[in-house]
Structures are given as C-alpha cells and as structure tokens.
C-alpha cells in the first residue's frame, strides 16, 4: 500500500512557471534532444515537481527538463508533485483553476502494480550509424532479450514481444516497443548487461532513454 503523502496534480503546461534561463543543453545527465524524442513516444510524461506560492502560481522546482519537453512537444498537461514547501492556500487556489486536477498516487500506483508487463518504448542513440551486420547483432543480442519475457510471464506471450523497430538519424538511432516486465529487477539485469556489452564490444551507445551513456560509466 502506498504511503506517500505528497499532493499530486495534473496541471496544464501553460500554467506552469518555468525558469527560462534553463537551457536544455545544460542537462548534466541527459541528452536533451534524445530525451525529447523518447518522451515524444510516450503518452504520460514523467512528473515534475512544483512549488506553489500563495497566489496559486506553480513554479517548476524540480525535474525541469520534463516541463521543458512538455512545452516543446505541445503537451496540454503534465503530472506535478507539489513540493511540501508550497503554500496550502495557494494549492487550494490552483485546484480551482480550469484544467487543474488532483490525482491519487495510491490509485495510480495500485493500477500500475496490477500490470506485471506493459508495452514500453526503448530508445537508443549510437556514436555512429549502425552497419547492417551491427544492426542485426543489436537485434539478436539486445532486442532478443525480450524473447524470454513470454516464458516468464504468460500474459506477455498473449500480448506479443517486440514491434515498431525503426532506425532514424541516419542510422544513429534505434527505437522499438517491447513488452517489458515492470517490476522484475532480475530480468532487468540481463537487459542492462546486453546493452552494456553491445556498447563495449560493437558500437558505443551514446544514450538510452535519453540518459547519457557517459553518465552510466
């Protein structure tokens, strides 16, 4: 059972105050363009953190990169965790605004926990375009890890395994959708191992899910 007491909202992106001095290029752990592409594929963006003042103004105070991406992608709304330093009266005022909706973390969490597997996007950027043989090796060694998911989770076998595998950026980017276990870290280890091995032995992975590979060394 979830025990997090924070207030969770869905807030129109236009209503967020974002520090415009923050450049996407300044992101230390992500390649902004890569993260933006990954986020463009998913329906629900990661939540931002907001601090709400007495006037109901929601200032993005954490995970700003997702707010910037939401704005760049033209997303209408984004989930926002209200920082405990916020003014309660301001939060109440914000909740009265059109399009602002209070969400229940407990309900979201319970619903997600029911899903042991889910279709999830996987996005890789490489240091150089993959040659034909390298792409095949990637499919066998990295994408192939998902073939075992159906053996572990019966419902995965009914859903499928992998689809929509495409390349982009002149072969530097590979993305695909896969049925992925959501909470099984034992499985994740095999996948992470395959990614790291491919990066070390075949072609360097610059980023995975937008996060810099250099940040993973």
């Amino acid at each position: 059972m979830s025990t997090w007491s924070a207030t969770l909202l869905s807030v129109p992106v236009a209503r967020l105050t974002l520090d415009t001095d923050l450049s996407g290029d300044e992101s230390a752990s992500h390649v902004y363009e890569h993260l933006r592409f990954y986020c463009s594929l998913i329906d629900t963006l990661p939540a931002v953190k907001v601090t709400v003042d007495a006037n109901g103004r929601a200032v993005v105070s954490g995970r700003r990169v997702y707010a910037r991406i939401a704005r760049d992608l033209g997303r209408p709304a984004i989930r926002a965790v209200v920082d405990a330093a916020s003014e309660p009266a301001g939060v109440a005022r914000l909740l009265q605004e059109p399009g602002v909706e209070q969400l229940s973390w407990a309900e979201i969490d319970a619903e997600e926990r029911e899903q042991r597997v889910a279709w999830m996007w996987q996005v890789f950027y490489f240091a150089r375009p993959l040659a034909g043989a390298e792409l095949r090796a990637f499919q066998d060694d990295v994408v192939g890890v998902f073939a075992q998911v159906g053996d572990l989770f019966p419902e995965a076998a009914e859903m499928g395994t992998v689809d929509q595998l495409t390349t982009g950026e002149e072969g530097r980017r590979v993305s695909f959708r896969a049925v992925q276990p959501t909470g099984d870290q034992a499985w994740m280890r095999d996948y992470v191992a395959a990614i790291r091995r491919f990066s070390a032995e075949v072609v360097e992975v610059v980023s995975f899910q937008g996060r810099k590979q250099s940040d993973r060394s």
Partner: protein
Amino acid sequence: MARLLNSQIHAQLQALTEAGRQLGNPRVWDGPTAVQFRTQQWPQASRSLDGALQALQNLQHSSEKVVEDIVRAGTDGTIGTAGGSGPGSPQTGTASPADVAAVTSLSKDQVRLSSNVYNIAYKTENAYTFNAIGGYIHGVQDLAGAKASYHDYSSKAIPELQHIIDTTADPALKVKAQNLLSIIRAQQKALDAVDTNALLDHPDPNVIRQVSAQTAVLTALGGVVTTSITKGGTVGEQFDDKGGVTVFYRGTTYGSASEVVENQALDVDRIIANQRLFPPASGPGVYITSQKSTADYYADLAGGGGRGLGPGTIRIELPPDEFNAFVARTGIPVEAPVPQPPTEGQTETIIPFDNAEEFDAMATYFLEEDE
C-alpha cells in the same frame, strides 16, 4: 563556575542517564532499533556518562578549592559559589570567559566520549539540537512536549534550509537541502496528525511513550542532519570520526523513491511483491549498488513510459562504522560481484528483508533529482 557545575551540567547528565535507562526498558520502547540501542549503544554511552559525571565531580572539588583560595586571599569574590550567591542574590560579577570555556570544554570532551544521540548532538555544537535533546530527556512521556520540541526544531531548521536552497551555487547541496526540507515538512505533518487526546485515551500508555520517544530521537537526529547540510558537508562525515560516508543507490520509480525518502524506510512490501513470482538469481532481498550508473538503468526501466511518475534513483548514505558492524554481525556480503556482470567489476549488495528495518535505522535516504 561552581554554580554552573552544580546545576545545569550535572543535572543534564543525570537526566540523560535516567532517560537512557527509561529508553532501555523494552516496556517503554521496543523494536529492532530499540534492541540495537539497548544492547549496543546505551551500554557504551552509559559508561561514558558515568565517566563524565565523575570528571565533573573532580572539577567541582577543584573549583571549590579555587574559591576558598580566592576568599582566603581577600578578593571580593567575582565568582559565584555553590552555596553562596544563588538565584536572586546580588552577584558581584560573572564567571570569566576562561572559566566558562573550561567548563564548556570539559563537558564537551566528556560527553563526546559518550555514544549515540547525545554524542552526535555535541559534535554538531548546535544550540537547537541541544535543546532538542532536552525534549529527549524530558519528553519521553509527554507527547505534547515532543511535538513542541519538533516544532521548535523545524521552525529553525526550515528557514535555514530554505536559505541554502535559495542561495547555494552547489547543485548537490541544494538537492540535499531540498530533500531534507521535504522530510522535515512531511514529518511535521505526520506528527501534527497525531491526535494527542486520542493517544492519551489509549488504554496502553506505552503507545504514547513510544511515539514521543521516537519523535524526540528523530528530532535530535534531524538537527544533526540539518547542521551537516548547513555546513556543506555530508551526513556521513558527521557520523564518522574518520570522515567519509558509505553510499549506495537504488533505481526505481520517482513515486516509489519519494515514498522511501519521505518514510525514511525501504518499500519492502513492494519489493516482495515484485520478487514473489520470480525470485532474483542471487536470492530475495533489497538490491542496492554502489554504482549510480547501474541504479539509473533500473530507474529508467522501472519508470519507463512515465510509470510511477517516471524514473527515480535513491541515494542511501550510511555511517561507515555502524554499517560495517551491521554487515559483520549479519554476514551480509557487501558489493559482491554480480553473476555474469554486464561490465567488469559490477557489484551488488542484497539486504535481506528481515534486516531491512535495522538497515533503515542507520540509513538516510535522499532523492537524486533529475535537473
């Protein structure tokens, strides 16, 4: 000086001894943390406190001798005596800075020898932490007192942390300050939600004692953490005389990570549920790693597609000595090589579920915020 020696310090040390004895009683406070306190921390602290009291008595004898000498020498007595000018009596002067320094130095040196909360509080040399210890001494059976003590602490700590957040140019320090601010506010909220009347009507008085004792300890420790952050250091450095801190990471979702940070406890139920059908190759338990890069991978996978509000990585800081004693006692292998490692040298540490509560008691959990 003599008045100081005879009143505050002596009384405080005695009160601390009494408080420790009370908390060492399982009928007052029980649970894994209490067992650790009762069997390991308090015996050592108690011996040190006895030593401090003895040293204090020695100094009292010395100071009385000094006063006698001064009187015999015919001065007008600028130092108050034990039996002389008490409260309300006209004083001809105050203790000199040197005398106060001697007393202060002595008490710090002696108390520094004692372990646990009192020791830590002195290390920080922080006034409101020391006041919080007052709550620890006097508030064990007084929930309202514990609440007031926490309010007092948080009212001072919150502006201090907010100032750091607003002014620091160090992003790591800012994140730590933000994390702690969130923790304090959440704890304050949780404490405010405790209905004193309902508790007082509770048929078992031990419930009240347990709540207030834990709150008071939390307050004292919170003061230490705040001070550490204020000084720009790490929590571990405050706990570890040798310096340094033991750090682990755990990758999960932002929602789950936030729960852990708010509760300052691992989400064991969630992990058990995840591992129920397919136990990990290295056995059940909470998987942590010293390699942030590995934890980030798990976070990106667990929080993929915005699940759980997106990826979240927990930073776990531990006092090295305590952690080393913990693993020595439990036999937990630390950073064992991962079977079939993705990259050479990858390691992991598995905290068995049965030891998670004890691990929580010494760990401080932080959220590694994405920018």
